[in-house]
């Protein structure tokens, strides 16, 4: 099985790559359109801001390619947000593969932004990506912007509001948390993606 990591400049690319290695998969890091198109699985990692993230994909000439992929695609953290229609962060138009608008968390007393740390995942609809997910399973989140709950939500989490932790539409999937840094729970979910 060939897995590629789209080199869109995120600083977590190394961590995602190591997590895949721990699962026995050597993923290639690439920005090459042909390599991405021919891969069995495509992962779009991402740490940073939506505007620069989309600008980088545009510079690399990957926008249309990403939109037309037919194999399983996984966006992680910012990579998941880039799959959505748009983001409040820098008023950015995103890839538009999942019809959601990414919004900033609203600060409130006791509610610190960024949302940083381990939080509980709650399955919202059955999906092979969530196979084996337990009711107490937690994942590691670091983000200031979130995808609201909609029919794209496979799992949710709570931080002042309920937001999407895992999303999917057709062959496009997203995880708001960092599976590469979510211990055994994260490894299980990454393995589920590799098994799709």
């Amino acid at each position, binding site marked *: 099985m060939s897995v590629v990591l789209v080199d869109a400049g995120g600083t977590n690319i190394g*961590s995602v790559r190591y997590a895949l290695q721990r699962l026995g998969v050597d993923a290639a890091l690439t920005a090459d359109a042909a390599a991405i198109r021919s891969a069995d699985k495509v992962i779009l990692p991402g740490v940073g801001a939506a505007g620069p993230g989309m600008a980088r994909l545009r510079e690399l000439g990957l926008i249309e390619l990403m939109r037309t992929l037919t194999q399983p695609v996984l966006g992680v953290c910012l990579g998941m947000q880039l799959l959505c229609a748009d983001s409040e962060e820098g008023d950015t138009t995103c890839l538009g593969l999942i019809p959601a608008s990414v919004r900033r968390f609203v600060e409130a007393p006791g509610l610190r932004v*960024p949302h*940083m*740390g381990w939080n509980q995942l709650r399955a919202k609809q059955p999906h092979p990506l969530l196979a084996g997910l337990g009711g*107490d399973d937690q994942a*590691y989140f*670091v983000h200031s912007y979130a995808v609201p709950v909609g029919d794209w939500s496979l799992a949710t989490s709570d931080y002042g509001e309920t937001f999407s932790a895992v999303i999917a539409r057709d062959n496009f999937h997203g995880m708001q948390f960092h599976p590469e*840094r*979510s211990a*055994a729970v994260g490894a299980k979910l990454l393995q589920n993606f590799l098994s799709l």
Partner: protein
Amino acid sequence: MLSRRIIPCLDVRDGKVVKGVRFRDHVVMGEIVDLALRYRDEGADELVFYDITASPEGRGVDRGWVERVARVIDIPFCVAGGIRSVDEARAVLHAGADKISVNSPALERPALIDELAAAFGVQCVVVGIDSLRDADGAWRVRQYTGDPTKTQALPRMTSDWMIEAQQRGAGEIVLNCMGSDGVRQGYDLEQLSMVRAICRVPLIASGGAGAPEHFRDAFVEADVDGALAASVFHSGAIAIPELKHYLRGQGVAVREVSKEARSEK
């Protein structure tokens, strides 16, 4: 619900984990990767690696070990010590660290915080603050605390620096209360509560943990998001599974780590 984080801090010198708050009388504790794995297995929520001599000596962090840790560790970790530029931070983040923490270099040149936040996003940028109460009762910032012979007292008020660091782009603050550090009599709840009131980003308590109750107090009384400790974990005085069990009983939300999920050793 977001869990409160338990964060062991490992002091690193020349690629080994060392013990000892003093610059010179440190003892090698073991290999970085071995200790990191041990804490990961015990249920640590995050790790901080602190190059204890990087800042006073004016050198950067050796990042060979950062990559070794990133390959085997599947919980987040932060690297602190001697990061003074965007390029140095990038090297550490690309080696696999999730966050970088700046302290003395940010005091030397506060714009470093803005530059790091612009380059990597605030979620990667931790600002460490060493704070001590002066004779007049005010908490002020200390610099170069990695080396007692070079530590400087600054005129800067801890509260002023807290606010400025956040405005510049700190995504998390670690407050090291030096007055309580190393004596295991509990976190400085008075200072942490003062700082909590003006801290809008996650706040990590550091300095003073000696008993499970101290963690409970920091979470419940001072409402911190995470509690960092070193010696009580290294010495085995507090085991993380028992600590989490105690905290859960006290109504503190913590992450459960099932025995099956721990790696085989």
